[in-house]
């Protein structure tokens, strides 16, 4: 049996992290060991390999559960570190894609987290889990590892980048013995959700799709610039992380022709006609619609009110759910079990039924449309659709 002989007599004592307490600097003594992780200065550090691991020296409480909360970040460096460090052989280059990460501690998967950013706005996510005091050995380490799910199905690997931890920021690790209400599931704008084991018992989840340009929405500021690049479009057939294909044909005539049908439909909706117009439109819209357009008096025709993007979205979602083209798929992150979840749509809320056989394992859920209506509808191009969990 191999017994390591590390002691040299020169080791400095390590001050273990107190519980409760927060570690948020890379030079903390309690951050004793790293693997695939670079210690930071004003943050705990950043992962440069996936999987990556940190080992914390902690003073365990006498008994009871310890709730550990990680604050993770996805910023510009997350993108560039992935592009620089993930081998070129990994194709497609998904450096800007969301990251799906298993959160492991003391050798076991505890929960998972999905990280994304919208445009260039840094994304921040918190994820928490419990370890029992008996799992913490004062001679050993509290290990926290971020890892990729093993052999994910294609619908997962096309939505979330491999080598997911590369570039991910670990802002802090908080430890507490208080009974903390765990944060509910988090959802990325593009409709990726991780349901932690705490919430896995729910019978259903309710989501609302909103336009990023909504005044009441979190994305209001982004929409205020009017220039946010497209996010990972809900239901887009374009795999995430790849450059977008040329949006339109090259020739002027081709461009005009290719946009014709969509424009006709859009203008019909704007005009409140709700059916296609047979003749050539008088107003060229071609995807550059601004919010002003819908409130412009000129938009009123024959006294009929124009249809706002919200209503278009509502209409689209209702149609997608009715035609069973809104797919909601779930992956059990321990068992690898895949399920398609039932969806219903009432009062602008999408309700997702939980898989009946929930074993308390963390679940990854992806919502997408069979076709890419939500991406291509002209009214929505400007605004982008985002999902928010409402219950």
């Amino acid at each position, binding site marked *: 049996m*191999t017994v390591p002989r590390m002691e040299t007599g020169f080791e400095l004592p390590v001050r273990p992290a107190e519980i409760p307490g927060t570690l948020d600097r890379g030079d903390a003594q309690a951050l004793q060991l790293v693997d695939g992780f670079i210690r930071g200065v004003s943050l705990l550090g950043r992962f440069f390999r996936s999987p990556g691991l940190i080992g914390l020296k902690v003073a365990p409480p006498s008994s009871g559960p310890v709730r550990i909360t990680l604050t993770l970040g996805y910023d510009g460096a997350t993108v560039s570190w992935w592009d620089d460090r993930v081998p070129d052989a990994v194709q497609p280059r998904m450096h800007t894609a969301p990251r799906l990460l298993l959160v492991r501690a003391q*050798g076991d998967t505890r929960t998972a987290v999905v990280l994304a950013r919208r445009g260039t706005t840094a994304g921040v996510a918190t994820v928490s889990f419990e370890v029992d005091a008996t799992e913490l050995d004062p*001679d050993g380490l509290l290990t926290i590892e971020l890892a990729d799910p093993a052999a994910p199905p294609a619908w997962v690997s096309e939505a979330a980048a491999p080598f997911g931890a590369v570039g991910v920021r670990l802002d802090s690790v908080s430890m507490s013995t208080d009974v903390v209400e765990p944060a509910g599931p988090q959802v990325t704008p593009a409709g990726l959700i991780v349901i932690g084991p705490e919430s896995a018992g729910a019978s259903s989840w309710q989501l609302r799709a909103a336009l990023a340009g909504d005044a009441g929405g979190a994305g209001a500021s982004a929409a205020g610039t009017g220039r946010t690049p497209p996010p990972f479009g809900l239901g887009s057939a374009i795999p995430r992380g790849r450059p977008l294909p040329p949006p339109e044909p090259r020739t002027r005539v081709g461009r005009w022709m290719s946009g014709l049908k969509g424009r006709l439909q859009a203008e019909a909706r704007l005009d409140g006609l709700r059916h296609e117009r047979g003749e050539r439109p008088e107003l060229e819209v071609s995807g550059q619609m601004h919010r002003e357009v819908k409130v412009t008096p000129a938009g009123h025709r024959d006294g009929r009110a124009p249809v706002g993007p919200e209503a278009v979205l509502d209409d689209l979602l209702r149609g997608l759910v009715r035609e069973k083209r809104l797919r909601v798929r779930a992956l059990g992150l321990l068992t690898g079990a895949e399920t398609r979840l039932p969806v219903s749509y009432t009062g602008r809320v999408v309700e997702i039924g939980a898989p009946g056989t929930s074993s308390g394992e963390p679940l990854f859920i992806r919502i997408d449309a069979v076709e890419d209506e939500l991406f291509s509808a002209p009214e929505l191009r400007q605004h982008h659709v985002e999902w928010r969990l409402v219950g």
Partner: protein
Amino acid sequence: MAESKELGPFCRAAAKFWSGTARPAGDDVVLVELMSQDLRVAIRNLTLASALCRTNPARMVVLTGTSKDDDPRTALAEAYGAADVVDVHGLVDALMHDAKVAPFVVAGRTVDLDAPAEPIAGDILATFVDATAALAHKAPRLGAEERQGPRYQRIKERAQVYSRLYDALCAGLEPAALVTSSVDYTHTGLAAESARRAGVPVVQVLSTGTLQARALFPPAGDGTFRAELTHRLGAAFDEHVWPHRAELHRRADHTAWTNALGRGRPASWRGGGEVSLLEFRNPAEREAVRRHAMARYGFDPAKPVVTVYVPDLTGALHGTVEAFEEPATWLKEMAELALARTDVNWLFVDHPEQGAPDYFAEVAAKHPGPRYVRSMDLSKNVLFALTDLGLTTRGAIAAELPAYGIPALQAGWSEWSELGISTVAADENGYWRTLRDTLDALVAGKALLTDDQVAKARLWMWFHRVATDVPTMLVQHWELGDGDELLGTLKTTFQYAEPDADPLFEAVRRMWTRREPFLTRYDLAEGPEGIA
């Protein structure tokens, strides 16, 4: 090296420094090899030769690979006061073109290329040719096709001429010593080989640390430079270091500690930085990391992990005694064994600067089952947390693992392999037998490493990083690089420092007069009293 602003001022300062009292002139000749493009190597060789000339008054004759006046090495040779410069590549080109070259004069002595000298034995020449060809072809082993190819033939023909030229230089100049940075490959290794046969002491300056050198004084045995040095290092360690283990124990532990922190000279098989830290301190902490690491590779936690450290498959082949003719054979057979012995987990780790990465990938593809990883994809924390037994041919890892309680078995010799740190098998049958017994013992849960082996491993780490590393202002630490920072620093030394009693001069004098196999920081004969 790129255009340097500091080279000119540095050379002027060096010329003034060395032309003063620093070095008496004598009639002897010291040959200094200056074939490397790396200025750190050139400066080290010239500095060591200059120190040698202080002890043994002589003129320096520089062997270089260029005749260009604007080559930095030519400028350096001049600045350090070389009496003459021999353009080896130029002479070899001429000899390849025309077998008859008139005798020429070097440093006042006549070198006759046609004077009969006993030529190098064909099989020894062939090992140099094969090692050079493997490097040139980036091939771990050469097939019949490659051996027939024009490239191989050219290397072979050139090798014969190199050997003839070096023989003639040794016969004509009767040098007091050869100072070289490399004892491998045709263009440098054959010089060391000629010197060995001519009874000329060979000093190899190492490309690491501050200033480290190994020396082989005649009579040299029949083995290669490295193999012969293994004996001498082993004997010197037993005589001067091991008896003082009680006094040196704290110093050795300190080196083991700085090494774990990634400080000091980085382990030869990886660089510095976060990937080179060894941060767990006790079995419980190692176990915490190991649980995650085992899961990553899908290892069975009930079985031990055997790590196969793959050497650079094209690097310095045939340089010493090895159980397998080529490390590539060893790798392939280890991969086959790994498929058969499923009572342990197998991890194959490639060399960080593998010359034949395709071969590693090919072996991995043909023998699925064991885990194959690139060195830099693993942190040292994970690597040492996983490894229960390390296997290598001659890698430095076989001396490093035991310093932290992990046993190692090697299929061949290394500098330290007579010290008893690792288990060493020098022939194929012995290797398989030892490996089988070792694996059986590992699976049975037996301890494979003694306390003495751990102590020896740490003492060796201290000895080769500290005791045989001479701090001198006349060169700078290897890690400073070979740019203007180095030249600027040395220029300051030459402008403002006096050479009197530089530690290097005393170290070289000791090595030279006592014919010791290495430079030392302190007088080993006096013992380590008061060195720390």
